[in-house]
């Protein structure tokens, strides 16, 4: 597995060589820097830590400053580890760019989805609601129904799906096709949509 960090730019569509319009998401990915290499001997697992998105030095606390100084890179906003990173010539401080991917690759994209706030069961869990407004139930159209009967079980089971906060969780979309890679401007286009709002950080893995 190898991967890169980026930021969602937005969506557009482009035409392929047959003139078919392909909807795609534009992601500004990289340049990332290798900030640390985890090894079996020292850390118990193999991984590569990548950093993305420069930030000014005044926003960096001392421990982080030392961490970045070790890799000899500028301060970065986002650090993420990738297990079993397979790419040639990975050394600490090295730049990882979007040319890791090529047109036609299948990638997975992980990002934090848009927050939807407190939602009822119809929106959050696709319940169908009670459905009728007659027979004396004019106000239960979007209600969850029974959540636990009276004699058995006389309680509510753990994990019962109910209303609550929805969205703003990590979502991975697998098997997206890379449509185009623009190395000069660090852009990558993947077919289809990607979780999260514009400017959300995303992880692209292959």
């Amino acid at each position, binding site marked *: 597995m190898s991967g890169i960090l980026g930021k969602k730019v937005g969506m*557009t*569509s*482009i*035409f392929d060589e047959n*003139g078919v319009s392909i909807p795609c998401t*534009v992601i500004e990915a990289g340049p990332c820097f290798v900030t640390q290499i985890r090894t079996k001997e020292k850390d118990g697992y193999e991984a590569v830590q990548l950093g993305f998105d420069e930030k000014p030095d005044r926003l960096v606390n001392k421990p982080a400053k030392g961490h970045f100084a070790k890799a000899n890179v500028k301060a970065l906003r986002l650090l993420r580890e990738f297990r079993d990173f397979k790419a040639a010539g990975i050394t600490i401080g090295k730049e990882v760019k979007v040319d890791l991917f090529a047109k036609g690759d299948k990638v997975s994209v992980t990002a934090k989805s848009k927050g939807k706030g407190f939602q009822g069961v119809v929106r959050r869990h696709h319940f169908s609601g009670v459905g009728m407004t007659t027979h004396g139930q004019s106000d239960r159209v979007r209600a969850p129904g029974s959540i636990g009967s009276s004699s058995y079980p006389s309680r509510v089971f753990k994990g019962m799906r109910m209303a609550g906060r929805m969205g703003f969780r990590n979502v991975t979309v697998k098997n997206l096709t890379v449509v*185009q890679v623009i190395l000069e401007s660090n*852009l990558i286009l993947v077919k289809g949509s990607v979780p999260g709002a514009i400017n959300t950080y995303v992880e692209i893995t292959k």
Partner: protein
Amino acid sequence: MNKIKLVEATQLKTNLPEFSTGDTLNVHVRVVEGDKERIQQFQGVVIGKRGSGMGATFTIRKVSDGVGVERIFPTHSPRIAKIEKMKSSRVRRSKLYYLRDLAARQIRQKTSL
């Protein structure tokens, strides 16, 4: 949004004639049959334009053997080989959907200069 424009810039057509709703266009469409490619022409009145950037489309209406035919073209599609502007006319709507309900003679009156 600038980065999206950067992506689109490589595919947006710059050589299109400027046309607006009410104009009569002759659109040369590339048609692929098996491994052969030929040009098909579609001539008619622009009854609407929508969208911007890569998503822009326009709708052309013509009456073929007494049957109204409408085609929606993506403005920047590579399948459009050429757009010829045959006639322009002043109309007072941005969408000419009412032409669907008019007779040919009335359409001529409506779209005459």
